[in-house]
């Protein structure tokens, strides 16, 4: 009982995730600033923002569906935090695992996007509505490539469990190199999932103000932002476990350090993309996704199917 509570609340649960999410937000913002020739925020800025938002007044719009509006941030937070327990972070084995957990993680990670849509929809504000529709449209564009690339990596390992995938790739040392194309595609899809430039279309401030979150304020907004921070950690950890699985079988300390390095490099890639691209339009994003990213992820799938035949 105590052990489970520690798992859920402290490590690797809520507290660890919140702290690492905020640290990663700082890393992202600082890198982005450095790339842009700016000074950037001090290390405690994300914490300060969070505390400030907690202290602010919660304003719930008169016309919003109040129950939905208030509960959605917590749904999103719970789903993201839950998905993390299936991802190995210090060795080849995660805290919990069963055959099929990769599917569960992917579905749990879809929930935040759906709550963003619902949050926008139940705000009953025009800007939120446009943002919500955009979030959903974008969801259909990036989700398929993301699933395909991660599943093709699972296919090569011949298992549906992230921990067993990690075991497989650590036994067959250089096999992860076959998935590099998939890794690149997954990073692009991740930009869409995390709503970062060039795919920050649902919350493009110059077009739809705050997008989905236009009407959110105070604590509710703080938890949505925390969810997004944690989503970055979980998604980066998932990508690290699936596409960069090397070195996890050595010992827990080295494994954990390697895990942190992998996550940091994925976040650095995301910041770099944020620096060098302009925001696309939603139609351009959907076109790009279905014209290039989806066919290429099918290619990765076919490569892995053939490879698996060759190996066996």
């Amino acid at each position, binding site marked *: 009982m105590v052990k489970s509570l520690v798992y859920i609340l402290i490590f690797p649960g809520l507290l660890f995730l919140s702290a690492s999410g905020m640290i990663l937000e700082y890393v992202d913002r600082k890198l982005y600033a450095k790339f842009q*020739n700016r000074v950037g925020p001090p290390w405690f800025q994300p914490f300060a923002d969070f505390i400030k938002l907690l202290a602010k007044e919660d304003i719930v719009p008169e016309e919003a569906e109040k129950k939905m509006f208030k509960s959605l941030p917590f749904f999103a937070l719970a789903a993201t935090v839950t998905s993390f327990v299936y991802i190995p972070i210090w060795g080849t084995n995660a805290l919990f695992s069963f055959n099929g957990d990769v599917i569960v993680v992917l579905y749990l990670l879809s929930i935040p996007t759906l709550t963003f849509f619902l949050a926008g929809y139940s705000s009953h504000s025009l800007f939120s509505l446009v943002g919500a529709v955009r979030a959903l449209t974008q969801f259909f564009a990036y989700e398929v490539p993301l699933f395909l690339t991660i599943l093709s990596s699972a296919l090569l390992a011949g298992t549906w469990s992230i921990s067993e995938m990690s075991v497989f790739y650590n036994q067959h040392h250089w096999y992860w190199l076959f998935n590099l194309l998939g890794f690149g595609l997954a990073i692009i899809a991740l930009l869409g999932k995390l709503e970062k*430039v*060039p795919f920050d279309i649902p919350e493009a401030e*110059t077009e739809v103000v705050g997008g989905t979150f236009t009407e959110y304020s105070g604590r509710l907004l703080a938890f949505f932002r925390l969810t997004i921070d944690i989503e970055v950690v979980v998604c980066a950890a998932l990508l690290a476990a699936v596409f960069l699985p090397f070195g996890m079988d050595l010992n827990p300390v080295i494994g954990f350090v390697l895990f942190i390095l992998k996550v940091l490099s994925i976040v650095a890639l995301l910041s770099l993309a944020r620096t060098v691209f302009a925001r696309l339009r939603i139609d351009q994003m959907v076109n790009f996704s279905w014209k290039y990213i989806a066919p290429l992820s099918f290619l990765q799938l076919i490569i892995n199917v053939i490879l698996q035949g060759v190996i066996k």
Partner: protein
Amino acid sequence: MDKVVIPIGPQHPALKEPASFSVTLEGEKIVDVNLRLGYNHRGIEKACEDRTFMQDIYLLERVCGICSHSHSTCYVQAVEDLAGAEVPKRALYIRTLIGELERVHSHLLWLGVAGHEVGFDTLFMYSWRDREIVMDLFAKITGNRVNYGINTIGGVRRDISKEDVQEILKAVDTLEERTKYYIQVATQEVTLINRLSNVGKLSRADVESLGAVGPVARASGVDRDTRRDDPYAAYSEVSFKVVTVENADVYGRTLVRVGELMESYNIIRQVIKNMPDGPITVKVPRKIPEGEAFSRYEAPRGEDVHYVKSNGSDKPERVKLRAPTLANAKAVLKMLENYNLADLPIIVAAIDPCFSCTDRTISIKKLDTGSSEIMDWGSLRKYSIEWYRKRGIRF
């Protein structure tokens, strides 16, 4: 989705100044736009009539924060025309120099804003960093970063020293280098080109019929530039190219502006090289002879027009100005037709709008009946006195 009407403004992150676009959307597509101006009316024209010709320079300089020199020069030219003053050559050269530096900082500012509107904040940060070079230069040679206060009736107030000249040349070299880099970015960055090209099309015929001016007109292939067509200051003595492109879209407007940056560096170098020695101002009597004058000036945003009428006293009887944004406002509505909501910020930004310069009148529109009424000065004054009296404030 059904048709929805989205209010972009009067307060919206895409707008730097209040203006109200009510946009009718069908999904993401814009089917109708309604523009309302007038949130920033400051009554400057009327205030000019209560001040002397000399005081009006400083008032009119504050019409716009970016093209402040444009407005003051345009006005001063009209007054000098009325007074028949022969402005010294050196003063004209200094006015040209400041005017071109102003164009540089205005276009760099625009480049950053355009980058921000399409979510390319890196370009925004870079170009605004470089804009600081010009701003610091202004602080050094005129004493101010924004409202330079360099014009006076009959010349300029400050001379340019030898050290200033060296600083300017050095700054221009740096800026030219950076601008070349921006041209490279604008012509090679795929996402940027995707967002800018074929957006906000405005055909040549539309430019002519809607009276668009400045870079907007030149991007549609209309070869029109007051600096060349009706030279003022020292422009008749420098050689430069009027940049025109045939793209007729936002991308074309970007190319025109970065092209003009390069031309401005060229003009600044020529002006500094050919600047004659001599006095910088002539004495002009305080009372300006009766008459009316009209002055044109190519501001960074397009042609700026001032009209001054004097009745022989030391105060003008009427000052009328038309800022370039007003000429382009109609064109924006045409440009927005059938594009996406996502394109709205960049299409609006592409004319480099300056709404506070534009607002000349207030017309009150009643939302329920749709009728509008225009108040003149007297009734506006009466209305405000009554408004305060009702609340128990006496004055």
